[in-house]
């Protein structure tokens, strides 16, 4: 198994080098004639007003919280899912109970009106 992750590492290295290569070739052969107007931010041709990196109201931060709960908890379900044939029926029901608690969380968020776009 150690070997498998070595291969993934090789993939990562080659996977970074290959996308960089055409960018380097492009950097060597492409013309470079920058001027202020060419480099100004493109927003449908209208001059941009103010800074882009402002405080922004992310309307879905509640969704992000619900997502966090779900994503972490579903990862715990993977070992259970794989071993399901070897588990006693009681353990399967335990897993289902775990999922139902997840569903209860979702229903709670729904009833509280957290799944609405605000």
């Amino acid at each position, binding site marked *: 198994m150690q070997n*498998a992750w*070595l*291969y*993934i590492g*090789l*993939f*990562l290295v*080659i*996977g*970074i080098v*290959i*996308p*960089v290569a*055409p*960018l380097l*070739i*492009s*950097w060597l*052969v*492409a013309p*470079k004639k*920058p001027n*202020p107007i060419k*480099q*100004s*931010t*493109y*927003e*449908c041709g209208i001059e*941009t007003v103010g800074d*882009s*990196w402002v405080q*922004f109201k*992310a309307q*879905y931060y509640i*969704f*992000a919280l619900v*997502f966090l709960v*779900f*994503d972490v908890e*579903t*990862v715990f*379900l*993977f070992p259970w*899912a*794989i*071993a*399901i*044939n070897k588990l006693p*029926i009681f353990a*399967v029901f335990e897993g*289902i109970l775990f*999922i139902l608690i*997840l*569903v209860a969380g*979702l229903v709670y968020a*729904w009833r509280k009106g957290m*799944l*609405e*776009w605000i």
Partner: protein
Amino acid sequence: MMFWSDPINFIGAWLHSVFSGWGMSAGPAGTLVAFLGILILIVFALVLDIMLVWVERKVVARFQDRLGPNRIGPFGLIQPFADIIKLIIKEDITPEGADKVVYNIAPVLAATAVILLWAILPIAGTITAVDLNVALLFLVAAGSLGTLAIIMAGWASNNKYALLGAFRMVANMVSYEVPMVVTLLIPAIITGTMSVKGITEFQSGVWLVVLSPLAAVIFTISAIAELGRAPFDLVEAESELTAGFNVEYSGMKFGWFYASELLHSYTFGGFISVLFFGGWQVPFLMADGFHFGSALVALPGIVVTLLQAVSFLVKAMIGYWVIMWVKYSMPRVRIDHMLAFNWKFLTPLSLAVLIVTALMDKLLASTNFYVLGMFLSNVVLAWITIEILRGVGRRQRKAEETALQPAMDAAHH
């Protein structure tokens, strides 16, 4: 080991002996062989990617009743190569005020994310680059790296439209990741393994789409959403955000975003085929040839491998074609509808499918009607879902009618 029975491993072993003959020790020689193999696989993926540009342009043209590229080479086949040359010799414009480091890393990361996915793609029985035992988790992890690239690109461009595109991508990702991970649990439950090779081998008899058709549909929908393709293409919604996250990119950097989007779609077509449509499995084809009942048409290993690879690539292309079909026939979904569709429909449904699959799999494990039982439980679940949706729709219509009634009465008087 013979060349005709197992060509890939034969060539690997032969190269290994050649490198050893040059005086290399076993470790570096093995690494070098692995390096060459991976290089060939990645180059194959990228050549395929170039052809996908042609396929995409040709197919969208046909959907819109146009001809598509047809000038350069037969059927315009040389067009994507001309495109690449053009992209490379274009001037690369970095907007003023962009975060240069993040801005330059983003397109590379977008391509790397897709190439990493090819590490676990089982192309044929003897061709899997890495047979990870946690491949499904790797799929989720590497799959969402592409999202990270989009967020980086949108944020670093110092452009409000790009930033809005990136914000929408976050909303997209945090929503559709949930049904995707939940439906990934279902092949794990049925096959009892997380390795994609194991999942493919399990499907020599029955494809998983028969055992869990609902999971296949949910996975396809959430894969399309994860890819940010229409009808979930709010990331680049041309009519609102010009081009969204990649509006400031030009030349080959834009080229990488475009290429990686296409290859990502194709790769997810491949994963849909691996998880639910048998991957490289060909009906009746075993490792030693075709088995029709008791009759055996023996085939050498090289032909079997070739048939399996063709089967996988064709299935992946069909999956990709379905993704394109959806893209070019659906209007864009509004963002609140998109999130509501996920949280109020797909997520509860995928959890219900998960519970039903786990229960039925356990109860029917050693019975004769396992396949039928799994299929019927999905049908019943789909029917209940449709009934619930119909009930909700009826109630909503009634509520709207009663809300309109006073206004209509007033109009009559």
